[in-house]
């Protein structure tokens, strides 16, 4: 499907236009993600699939968190062996393993 969401903006223009350059780095990231979300919710109306085209998306393999036990066991192992956590889910550990 053809996307209508192509953006051709010089580097840094978006941040200057939105006034993001004045914000702390963390807040700038947050605002940018919200902006992407807002674009996804309204600005990209040609993205997506029609209701009758959701057949493949309904398959288990296409689900977000399709195998939750597997994912959470992986998160648990990596949380106990590495310094990073979060992203896919919350960063909290729930155990004394790190």
């Amino acid at each position, binding site marked *: 499907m053809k996307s209508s969401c192509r953006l051709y903006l010089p580097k840094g223009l978006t941040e200057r236009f939105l006034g993001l350059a004045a914000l702390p780095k963390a807040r700038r990231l947050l605002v940018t993600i919200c902006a992407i979300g807002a674009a996804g*919710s309204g600005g990209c109306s040609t993205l997506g699939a029609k209701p009758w085209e959701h057949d493949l998306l*309904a398959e288990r393999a296409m689900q977000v968190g399709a195998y939750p036990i597997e994912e*959470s*066991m992986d*998160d648990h*192992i990596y949380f106990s062996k*590495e*310094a990073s*956590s979060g992203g896919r889910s919350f960063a*909290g550990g729930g155990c004394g393993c790190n």
Partner: protein
Amino acid sequence: MQLKPKLGANSVGVRGALAAAAAGLLAGGHARAQETTAGAPTTTIDSALLTYHEVNRVQAIEPVVNVSQKIDEDGTLYFGVAADSLTGATPLGAVPSTLAQTYVRPYKIVPVGTSTTTVTSASGGSTVVTEPAATGAKTETLAATTVVPPNTYPLDHGFTDMRGAGHLGWEQALTQNLKLDGGMAYSKEHDYRSESAHLGLSQDFNGHNTTLSAALNYESDLSFPIGGTPTPLTEMNGNWKGPDASLHEIDALIGVTQVMSRRWLSTLSYSFSSAHGYQTDPYKIISVVDPVTGQPDEQLYESRPDQRRKQSVFFDNKIHLARDVVSASLRVYKDDWGIKSLTADLRYRWQMGRDYYLEPHLRYYTQGAAYFFHYYLVSDQAIPEYASADTRLAKFNAQTYGAKFGFALNAASEINLRVESYDQQGNGSPAGAIGQLKQQNLFPELKAYTLLLGYTVAF
């Protein structure tokens, strides 16, 4: 194979409850077009058994059962239990030496006069000794001493743990497009307890093609180490130490999941975490070495900051090919302990037949070191406020290689088996190593294997 999308979260322990709650929210309603009320499963039972084997270190086994039950058209109850059993050896944090080294840790409090021969021996080949009790005291401390041979990386061979965990939650569709999820989780080890509660909202747009989600989690943990909580940067000894220590953490997650096309689903999420409280590992030590010979003069309990703020951005894509499915994700992470990391994950689900698939998996991870990570401290230099020799806070790379074979027993059940290996490599010969440390490996490679057997049924 086509299983009905699960509306309830399924998870393992506290971490699992968080992961599944977040995933459930991010999932939104993009698959709802396929659902039909009549004949749709109302109960899903998800179960797994994990065996984890580290070469020469920790061994673990973990069974998990999770249930989600659709109560009515809009509400789903979900709950689950998990158990962990761990034994083996874990690094102490001290450097190896060309000389034999003796380590001591408090082990048990007993009435004064209890013979050490009547006390069950500390595991891992340790010797139990009695620490001198104060005059008039009714109890005394038994301590376990371990001798580490020359040129051997110091490990605590007495490591053992049992953990039980459970979670309970409710997912409610408030409107056709708005979903609320809330729940709580509990986890208990013999030296640690964790309680948490989460709340999340997700809103679908564009005919269920876009889902915006936001979730909050509060976690309250209590650490009560065997031997008490040591004072950071004091010398390791066999005396019983300080009181329990607490940790409080708030997590926030926002995300957008977008159906890009009939075959492409994309998710972008941002998570922020702020933790305040005890985050030091009470069992880890750091060596203070002689500035010339590199021989350890002292072993101090490590010290970590009590504040930590983590941020990560996670980008995930699932692409349905003619029959196969490709999943690729990237995570960028940073925190105010100075750690930055990058995680890339790739899975290819090869649908070999109508009812079975093979899914190879690759994961690459790289992280930088925490600003207070040191392989060791040097005795003629000032001791910093924070110092840890825990190699999990060091700079290293890691790779996971694995494969999963899944078989659909019927339209509503699947059994799968996954085998994976995990390798971690860091710099074992840091520049500027002193004296005998030049000939030691200060970052021994970690190699682990996992075997995961899973079974899901919906009815």
